[in-house]
């Protein structure tokens, strides 16, 4: 390896890292170690990785795995800067918040039309004022839960009908029960805060506004499943939250409210979108490339280090203390039959008043947009709402009357996902949107399976051709067959969902595609003739 000038510094850094770590270093420190190398030197040159790996000699990690992991994560690899540029560009283009922007509370300060349960204290109390939170009721549910048997807690959650808020909508109680029933000596709880959907930052808003609710939810879940260790798996773009969260955690630890049997820590991710998928997330915590695992076994059976692990989304865990405190009936007093409680949504895109909102499940989508979000920006007409993130789809204007719920969004062909909603006004080109989302999917494909590795690339390529005026009639068939391949043959939910946005655009807005292909015209005026070559040109 040759690292002109830096070589000596690197040597020094490695020596600093080595003595205290070598024998105690666990594979899960891998990302942290490489992050500190990158912070010192700006980048981790791939040709230096073998030497670094050999030097670190982390027990249990072969050198090839170090290289595999380091080259996988955008934050550590050379891919990072270009991937980040793309994401920021998309955020700017879609007019959604970037991870560094301050959180917006839609409807503040009196939040008309909202049912603020999880968000009740967000933006109201100072999160660093621990006693204020305690006075307001934080950690009381935990005390109550500790007086219940784990099975009673699980029973309570079961009867509330709580479903995972991360996107899959799986029964929370069932996950917990699976982990509970295992006789393994160690169990883990992971709070999934790898929030990566464009324009979705509900998790971040909760962690910033009421971290105690999340920690409390984690402690209750840990009690229920018998976990002794919990981690908040934090999206790397939220690294600026780490000092804040550590401060809050310090207060919590010092207060002793968590008790002796449960330790909480923060694990900072390294920038891969697919790590929001729970098995990929676990791989990354083990210092491996964050590719999804084969299932079964499910994480609740064999998760982190092969031990039963429950991975719950921030929003799911934040509901838990409320259910324990107020009861299952109270929880399901709002909502629909199969989507109970409240939904936490993030309004972004072409909307008058963007921000995080909490509404009862079942509230009509159009009301949320018009009443709370005050309609489209500049009095424009709404063409569609994008939901479910890059693996989601579009709900066309004609269907905006549907209620907010897992089932009605699914029926409309665009999943509710984690709750990020991007409002699309009449000025936007749907082909261009499809291309942008497809480009994101291509960038984030982990490459594990052939359909996703090759299919996401082909879809992005076809859409790019259409946007640049080189589309042909054959492209329709091409998109549909690639889409079918991805959705039915891919290894994990990422690949299965990767073509969804494009297919949804094609389904609802086929005329725009035809216009691009046959007339070489873009009504929105964003595609050809100008700036067609690269994604950077897509800002209007």
């Amino acid at each position, binding site marked *: 390896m040759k690292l002109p000038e830096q070589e000596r510094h690197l040597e020094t850094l490695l020596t600093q890292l080595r003595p205290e770590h070598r024998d105690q270093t666990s594979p899960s420190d891998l990302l942290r170690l490489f992050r500190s190398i990158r912070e010192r030197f700006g980048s981790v040159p791939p040709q230096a990785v073998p030497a670094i790996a050999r030097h670190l000699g982390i027990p249990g990690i072969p050198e*090839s795995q*170090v*290289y595999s992991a380091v080259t996988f994560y955008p934050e550590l690899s050379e891919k990072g800067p270009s991937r980040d540029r793309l994401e920021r560009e998309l955020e700017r283009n879609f007019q959604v918040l970037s991870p560094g922007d301050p959180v917006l509370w839609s409807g503040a300060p009196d939040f008309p039309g909202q049912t603020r349960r999880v968000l009740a204290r967000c933006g109201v109390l100072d999160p660093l004022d621990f006693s204020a939170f305690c006075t307001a009721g934080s950690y009381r549910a935990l005390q109550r839960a500790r007086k219940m048997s784990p099975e009673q807690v699980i029973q309570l959650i079961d009867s509330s009908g709580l479903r995972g808020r991360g996107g899959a909508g799986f029964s929370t109680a069932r996950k917990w029960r699976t982990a509970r029933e295992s006789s393994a000596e160690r169990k883990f709880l992971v709070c999934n805060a790898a929030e990566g959907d464009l324009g979705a930052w509900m998790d971040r808003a909760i962690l910033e506004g009421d971290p105690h609710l999340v920690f409390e939810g984690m402690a209750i879940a840990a009690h229920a499943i018998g976990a002794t260790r919990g981690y908040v798996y934090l999206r790397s773009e939220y690294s600026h939250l780490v000092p804040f969260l550590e401060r809050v955690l310090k207060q919590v630890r010092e207060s002793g409210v968590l008790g002796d049997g449960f330790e909480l820590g923060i694990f900072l991710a390294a920038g891969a979108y697919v790590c929001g998928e729970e098995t990929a997330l676990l791989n990354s915590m083990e210092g491996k490339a964050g590719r999804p695992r084969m299932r079964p076994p499910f994480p609740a059976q064999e998760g982190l280090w092969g031990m039963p692990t429950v991975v719950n989304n921030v929003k799911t865990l934040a509901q838990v203390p409320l259910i324990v405190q107020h009861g299952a009936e109270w929880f399901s007093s709002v909502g629909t039959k199969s989507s109970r409680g409240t939904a936490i949504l993030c309004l972004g895109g072409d909307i008058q008043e963007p921000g995080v909102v909490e509404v009862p499940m079942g509230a009509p989508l159009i009301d949320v947009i018009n009443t709370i979000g005050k309609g489209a920006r500049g009095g424009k007409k709404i063409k569609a709402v994008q939901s479910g993130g890059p693996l989601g789809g579009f709900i066309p204007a004609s269907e905006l009357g549907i209620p907010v719920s897992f089932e009605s969004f699914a029926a409309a062909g665009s999943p509710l996902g984690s709750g990020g909603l991007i409002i699309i006004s009449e000025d936007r080109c749907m082909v261009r949107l499809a291309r942008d989302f497809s480009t994101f999917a291509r960038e984030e*494909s982990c490459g594990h399976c052939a*359909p996703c590795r*090759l299919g996401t*690339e082909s879809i992005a390529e076809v859409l790019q051709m259409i946007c640049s005026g080189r589309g042909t009639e054959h492209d329709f068939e091409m998109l549909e067959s690639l889409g079918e391949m991805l959705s039915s043959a891919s290894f994990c939910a990422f690949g299965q969902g990767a073509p969804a946005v494009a297919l949804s655009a094609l389904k609802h807005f086929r005329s725009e595609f035809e216009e691009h292909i046959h007339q070489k015209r873009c009504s929105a005026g964003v595609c050809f003739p100008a700036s067609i070559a690269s994604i950077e040109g897509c800002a209007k």
Partner: protein
Amino acid sequence: MSVSFTVDGQLLKSSKGESLLVALTKAGIRVPSLCHSPGLTPGGHCRLCLVELEGRGLVAACHTYVDDGLKVRTETPKIRKVRKSTLELLLAEHPLDCLKCAKSGSCRLQEVASYIGVQPQASSVSDLDSDAGQDFSNPFFTRDPKRCVLCGICVRTCREKVGASAIDFAGSGAQLTVSPGGHESITESRCLSCGECVERCPTGALIKREAEIPAKEVKSVCTFCGVGCSIYLGVRGNEVVSVRGDDRSPVNEGLLCVKGRFGFPFIHSPERLTTPLIRKDGQLVPASWTEALDLVATKLIQYKGDQFAAISSSRCTNEENYLMQKFARAVMQTNNVDNCARLCHAPTVAGLSKAFGHGGGTNPLKDLDETGCIFVIGSNSTDAHPVAGNRIRTAAKNVPLIVADPRRIDLCDQADIWLQLRPGTDVALLMGMAKVILDEGLEDTDFIASRCEGFDEFRSAVEAFDLGTASSLTGVPAEQIAAAARLYASSGRSMIVYSLGITEHSHGTDNVLAIANLAMLTGNVGRPGAGVMPMRGQNNVQGACDMGCIPASLPGSQPITKPDVREKFEQAWSTKLPELEGLTVVEMLQAAEKRSVKAFYIMGMDVAFSVADGKRTRKALEAAEFVIVQDIFLTGTAKLADVVLPAASFAEKDGTFTNLERRLQRARQAIEPVGDSWPDWKILCELARRIGASGFDFSAPSEIMAEMTRLTPSFAGMSFERLERADGLQWPCTGAQDPGTARLHVERFNTSSGKGRLAALKYRPAAEKTDREYPILLTTGRTIYHFHLAMTSQVPGLMELDGEEFIRLHPDDAKHLRILDYEEVRVISRRGELRVRALVTNAVMPGNAFMSFHFYETPTNDLTQQDVLDPVSKTPEFKVTAVRIEKVQQP
């Protein structure tokens, strides 16, 4: 548990836990796939093995498991369409210059494409520059990433089967590749060149450099170490052109190491001896067989009795070894017959016989997969016994591994505890562990009470080894010794694996006894996953001893000194047999110095360079009046001979070899003997007849075995005919219905009392000591690329990977001596000196150094000593040599 399900309307049965892909394939239903490889965990990469499950839609058959009532369709319009899309994309990034690709014809991608029915249109990959991006660094295979379909079979093979994890996926998405850990070439990585990934690669991404398709295959046994991997030799005409592992073998399950897969070109080396040689006027000159054999016969008649010594070969077959000891005893009237086990595992035979009653390993290799803890001491298994080493490495992913070794060997990377003990302090370490076990009540009291004797004496001997003493003698921190003891004693089922790091000491037998103590103390003998496994070095070192090429015993460890035993053989062989035990190898040589041994018959052993103190050994051989060497190469020893007889290699003859599991397996003749070489058994018979002896009229090795089994109760149930059908038989096998013995000592030990004998041991330091003049302690051992000297040095690829001796020394010592990496140094012991280059590495401890013994140019054994031997087994102290390392002043 059996489950039934329907496939395309047909009812199928299969066992639960099996994947649909495996079940369908077994049922003869074809399911296309690129990323499935037998015995590996499913990868789920290629997504071509799609089937439709009623109620679930398309699923990948490789990671969907059979279950009752499943309704499976293997061919629907949707399946056709989807897998065709995937395949088209795969082909679009694959070069289509198939005729230029060595894999053409056996390429899975071609096969799948023709099955699925894709006509590739055009590839984005240009075939003009077909060398671009290829990795030619390995002498045995080429990597061509352009032809890689990212199926991950190589990655999983290296991780799951080999345990080396040299390669892994790198990057993500469209930039995904398989990388040797980021190194530019595979040879810079931790790749061990075993070629298992090459064997399994479905496309031309990994290709053997020299691949010829054989006309027929002959099942045989690898001869590069005592593991005894079952192989198929591929033959074209009279040439061995390929080798592959036998995937149905319980020994190796298809796996081979670099030597086993790529090391057999030695068979056709131009250096093979093709005609007898006779020394005339100081020169070895070619002679006819008649001339050579007549000369040998005439000479040997003059040396009958104890002035003759035979050194047999642990590379030759059991039948040949049987004949050699019969020749020495019945024809030459002496018990001076020994084999190279004297230099390696004689302490095992002595120690385990004393403690357990049998001198062999107690358990089969597969027990490594089901043990609860593995304790490896004095065995660099991944280098010296790679296929067994891989098994340890993969097993250790799930169970604790303790490694005791002065060097940081590869297994240390995976060890839960690494005990870096000073060379020669094994007894202190093992007795120290025993004391911890007793002090903490971790011993198996029932086992000790019902199965062992000598406990009280043992108990009091252990008292001398408190943790403080054990720690200060071994240099291992006390808490590590205690932790290892606890781990070993409390796993429920523990295995000890050891090798020459234990035996090649002036107290080697004590070391072995200390191991046996530990196993008996914790009840870890005679159960699945619980036992003692000595890793035998040469492919038939177990067999050579079993066949009676031992001065004290006739075949089957029957003592020569026992009158009834002698009588049985005398009757069978129609001759009187000498009553007294003969000389061991080193004693023979030392007797030659005193002119009491005058003639040597050396079969297949490079005595002059393998015995400790090489110069002294060569002088002893020169002092003998007549030396016959029978070998396949003109070895360093053969060069000193008066007559050299050209032997056939294992590929050129029939016979049996016994591996370290006591398993006899058949080697089969694949080709005619090279040149005018003869199988060793034929030479022995011919010679005996010329001397006028009867009882050597064998026309095939099977007849020799028949005689041996008639005289040897523990082999009585064996025959070529039985071995033809079985994957080997493990002795004892006492009758035609006896299936052989996978595990020894299950109910009783083979001692006279039926009980295991605990040994009250004392610590004795090594005989050789460092001092101011010779301050560095040198240990020796094998590397993965070589066997000993003559065979592997004939394989250019192995020499390319490891073609030169190095002395490995610690950075502190290098700094002190002002020696740089790769600098040539002089290594001087009290007996000899040589020049080698230095390799500065943390793998050896300060004050220690390490060399292999694979090169004639740098005869490592010129440094070692044969003055003090293990008193019981007469094995030299190879592992402890005091040396001085000096800079070579540049002229």
